[in-house]
């Protein structure tokens, strides 16, 4: 068993938020031990301050199921391990609010992601996916992240916002800066972050005001502009609303699309099975990819009262980190949990979209994009082979990649 040298005392204080665990892709054995031996553990010191770790599936669900005791509010620090309420970018987004304000805003956005609304996007998604795949080089290394994952997700988010098409290349960088919690309290990097985020907010504010002056349309900005529950937002709420939809639609699907290539390389037999029968297996392969990637590795809550959790005494005001990446590998729910199994019967129980009232609104769209990518790759008999070690993000929040060098062959039948 990995890490048996760690004493119980050390295990209880294990800091799984350390950036090097994520950039080196070495976090799995630490979480396996937490699940087995210390599923609710307290880390007294870290880059992000003290925090509780919740590592098992059922405990994560229990916390998410009690939103009154375990608050998401930005006023307590929000939904990530880094306390953002004292920075210039507080991200007062509705996922970082409790009810009733959370529910009011969520309900206003929901019509944009109903099955019928998403079905209207499916043809465009398939066309763009096919175009990008058909233009990839063969037998010459290229970066999958920048050649496939980023262009596809950027096009999608530009469509959802009806963002000017010729400006869409700005979206990934803005999204990355919104999601960069790994910089912590560093004043220089926070100033840099503020610069990019306020630039994003200024451009979106122009578009928002334009949409408000126009008749309602189906894009996200127009929906917000014409909704009573969004209405006149303060600047931090506006930034938060844009950031949530941008990061939610961008980084998460991007990193799942990138993670797909790792899974294909790790489980070539499963990929052959998917290619042989994509109609039956593509959706399961997409769900398994999202489960194993867990592109948002954690959500954070703050205790609003003293409470016992898994036999541990949590104090009012304590920070609780729900490690979805760990819950998604909990053997009690997902036997042989590290295996990419497109035929796994309970794969849809994964926690990558969260659980409870804050569950990801865009889950259905993420599944469609990834399923379409898999189907189109299968149709072209694509065999992406990773060259060298992927370069990963040094973040315990956005579990993803900077680069994955790939060579690829495909059929021309």
């Amino acid at each position, binding site marked *: 068993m990995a890490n048996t040298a760690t004493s119980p005392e050390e295990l209880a204080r294990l800091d799984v938020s350390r950036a090097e665990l994520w950039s080196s892709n070495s976090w799995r054995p630490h979480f396996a031990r937490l699940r087995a031996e210390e599923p609710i553990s307290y880390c007294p010191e870290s880059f992000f301050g003290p925090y509780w770790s919740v590592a098992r599936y059922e405990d994560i*669900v229990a916390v998410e*199921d009690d939103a009154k005791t375990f608050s998401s509010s930005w006023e307590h620090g929000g939904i990530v391990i880094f306390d953002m309420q004292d920075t210039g970018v507080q991200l007062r987004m509705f996922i970082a609010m409790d009810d009733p304000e959370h529910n009011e805003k969520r309900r206003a956005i*929901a019509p944009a*992601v*109903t*099955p*019928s609304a998403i079905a209207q996007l499916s043809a465009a998604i398939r066309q763009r996916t096919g175009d990008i795949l058909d233009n990839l080089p063969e037998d010459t290394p290229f970066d999958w992240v920048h050649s496939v994952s980023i262009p596809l997700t950027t096009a999608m988010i530009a469509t959802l916002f009806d963002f000017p098409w010729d400006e869409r290349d700005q979206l990934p960088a803005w999204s990355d800066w919104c999601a960069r919690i790994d910089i912590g309290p560093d004043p220089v990097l926070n100033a840099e972050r503020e610069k990019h985020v306020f630039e994003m907010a200024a451009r979106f504010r122009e578009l928002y005001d334009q949409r408000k002056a126009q008749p309602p349309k189906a894009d996200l900005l127009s929906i917000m502009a014409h909704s009573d529950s969004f209405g006149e937002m303060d600047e931090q709420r506006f930034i938060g609303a844009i950031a949530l939809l941008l990061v939610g639609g961008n980084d998460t699907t991007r990193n799942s699309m990138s993670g797909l290539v790792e899974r294909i390389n790790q489980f070539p037999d499963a990929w052959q099975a998917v290619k042989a029968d994509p109609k039956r297996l593509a959706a399961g392969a997409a769900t398994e990819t999202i489960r194993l990637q867990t592109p948002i590795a954690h959500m954070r809550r703050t205790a609003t009262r003293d409470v016992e959790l898994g036999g541990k005494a949590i104090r009012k005001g304590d920070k609780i980190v729900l490690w979805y990446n760990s819950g998604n590998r909990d053997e009690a729910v997902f036997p042989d949990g590290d295996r990419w199994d497109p035929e796994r019967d309970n794969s*849809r*129980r994964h926690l990558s*979209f969260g*659980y*409870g*009232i804050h*569950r990801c*609104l865009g*889950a*259905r769209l993420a599944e469609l994009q990834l399923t379409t990518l898999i189907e189109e790759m299968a149709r072209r008999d694509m065999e992406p082979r990773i060259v060298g070690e992927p370069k990963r993000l040094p973040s315990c929040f956005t579990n993803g990649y900077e680069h994955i060098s790939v060579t690829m062959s495909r059929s021309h039948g």
Partner: protein
Amino acid sequence: MGEVIARRYRCLNCGYEYDEAEGRPELGVPPGTAWQDLPEDFLCPQCGSDQRDFEPKD
């Protein structure tokens, strides 16, 4: 004629429970609507999941 027992169905993504006896009148689903008689586009009122992510409670 045997008594019809109303059942409850739980959303596995958020914990919301659909109770056949209560329906969801505000969503156009009258009390007594059986699970299999729900409109195809009925989504979890709490998290938006579709019907494949529900399972019988008991």
